[in-house]
């Protein structure tokens, strides 16, 4: 089966201490275009480090990362900035700017990168993004400190969607949320993916249930390497003892 690849990672290694220890130990991974890929694994297996490499925030110690067929290491700063504009990120705690209202947060990427638009036009787009992210209009002029955790995630998602990105990355979006809010955020990610045709979604998560509910393609990391990748069915039918235990018992924090 051949499918278009959005992100292609080859033999990616990363060390933060000059080569004494490696967080990523030669990772090979292909993220298909237009699908939801869920990257799961224990804490400390390198999920967030991998995401920062995809965004060009970290430089690999060795190996290569291609996004839309272009090698990140060959890109100039301006090209990386242009590439980042094609990506939207929802951070673990939403990372909203706390001196801006929900509406201003959602309009911020437009203010920076669509300067040809008038303020009213930017606000109209931001209102639309907030609406499809499910935030009630009465909260548009509230500061992040006045919003609940779920509302903040919705504003974060609206901001991530503001420039109609081709790739949406979610960094542990449900960590620390209660089960009802977790389900709400999962549904939000799913509906967003379905309503934005052709968008590639990459979800980094601890949550195995979310991986099975959302993922077209699941990648399991262990000790800086890809332990297994495939469809949810592949994970259920696997013979790999480690993965079977993981699937049967769910993820526990490594002691």
């Amino acid at each position: 089966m051949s499918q278009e690849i959005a992100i292609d990672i080859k033999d990616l290694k990363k060390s933060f201490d000059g080569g004494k220890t490696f967080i990523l130990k030669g990772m090979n991974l292909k993220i298909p275009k237009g699908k939801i890929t869920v990257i799961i694994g224990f804490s400390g297996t390198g999920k967030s480090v991998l995401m920062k490499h995809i965004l060009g925030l970290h430089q690999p110690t060795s190996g290569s990362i291609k996004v839309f067929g272009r090698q990140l290491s060959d890109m100039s700063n301006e090209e990386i900035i242009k590439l980042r504009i094609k990506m939207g990120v929802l951070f673990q705690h939403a990372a909203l700017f706390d001196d801006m209202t929900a509406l201003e947060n959602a309009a911020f990427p437009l203010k920076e990168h669509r300067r040809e638009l008038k303020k009213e036009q930017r606000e109209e787009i931001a209102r639309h993004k907030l609406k499809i992210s499910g935030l009630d209009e009465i909260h548009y002029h509230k500061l992040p400190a006045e919003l609940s955790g779920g509302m903040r995630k919705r504003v974060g998602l609206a901001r991530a969607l503001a420039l109609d990105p081709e790739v949406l990355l979610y960094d542990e979006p449900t960590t620390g949320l209660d089960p009802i809010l977790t389900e709400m955020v999962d549904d939000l990610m799913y509906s967003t993916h379905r309503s934005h045709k052709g968008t590639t979604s990459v979800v980094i998560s601890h949550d195995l249930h979310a991986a099975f509910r959302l993922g077209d393609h699941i990648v399991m990391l262990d000790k800086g390497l890809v332990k297994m990748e495939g469809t949810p069915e592949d994970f259920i039918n696997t013979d790999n003892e480690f993965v079977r235990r993981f699937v049967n018992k769910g993820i526990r924090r490594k002691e």
Partner: protein
Amino acid sequence: MISWWLSKRHHLNSSINSFFEQIVQNLSSFFFEAGRTVLFFSQSIKLLFTKPSRFKDLLIHMEFVGNQSVLIILLTGAFTGLALSYQIYIGFNLVNATNLVGPTVALGIFKELAPVLTGLIVAARAGGAMAAQLGTMRVSEQIDALEVMGVNPLQYLVAPRLMAAILTMPLLCGVFDAVAIYSAELLCVNLLGLDSAIFWNKIQMWTDTDAINEGLIKAGIFGMTFSAICTKTGFYTKGGAKGVGDATNKGVVYSMVMIIVLNFFTSNLIRLYHSIMESL
């Protein structure tokens, strides 16, 4: 006995060695950090002149650093002028030289006290806020969010703060100068009985615009110093709330110490510059 002496001598030698090693280590880390701060400053400030324009942000930060510091500068300036002029009056009265109270107070304020005290106060108020704001933005991933949105955080967050401090510090120093000297006049003329005309005449005789300019230049340098130190410590904050607290504390303390140290060197450099210019 000899073995006891040898072991004591060995212990003493190693203590002396480790003491000097510690000094060398501290010095090298100081110069390393100073170098990094200069690099951080130069990388950031030039971004202010690149697109997109951050003029509106610059004005917002100028209002924060400058306008919101005016009241505290007025208070500090007024009481510094009162206290200094009173002490100088007491001393000069002993040798019947009260005519020189005005110029002595003026020179002390224009050249040293106004820039240093303005620097210390604004470093504590605005510098501390800069370090805390950027530190909070770092630990809550807001700076990462800016980067992934294709916005250079040095250009958006750091450059306007640096320029705001450099531009507003001389203005605040000017306010300090004016308030301190009028407070000194209020005390000396209205309460201590000095002649107003003599007070101002002697100031005009013994001071010139160079003395005022020296203080204003120094204030600009101190603004550059505290804003570079505080934005850098905030920008590179690690950890959570403790990291923000440490960054703020480090930023303010380093800024204050550097302002006092730099004051000595800039005074001498400016004096050297004037003597060179006079000899030409």
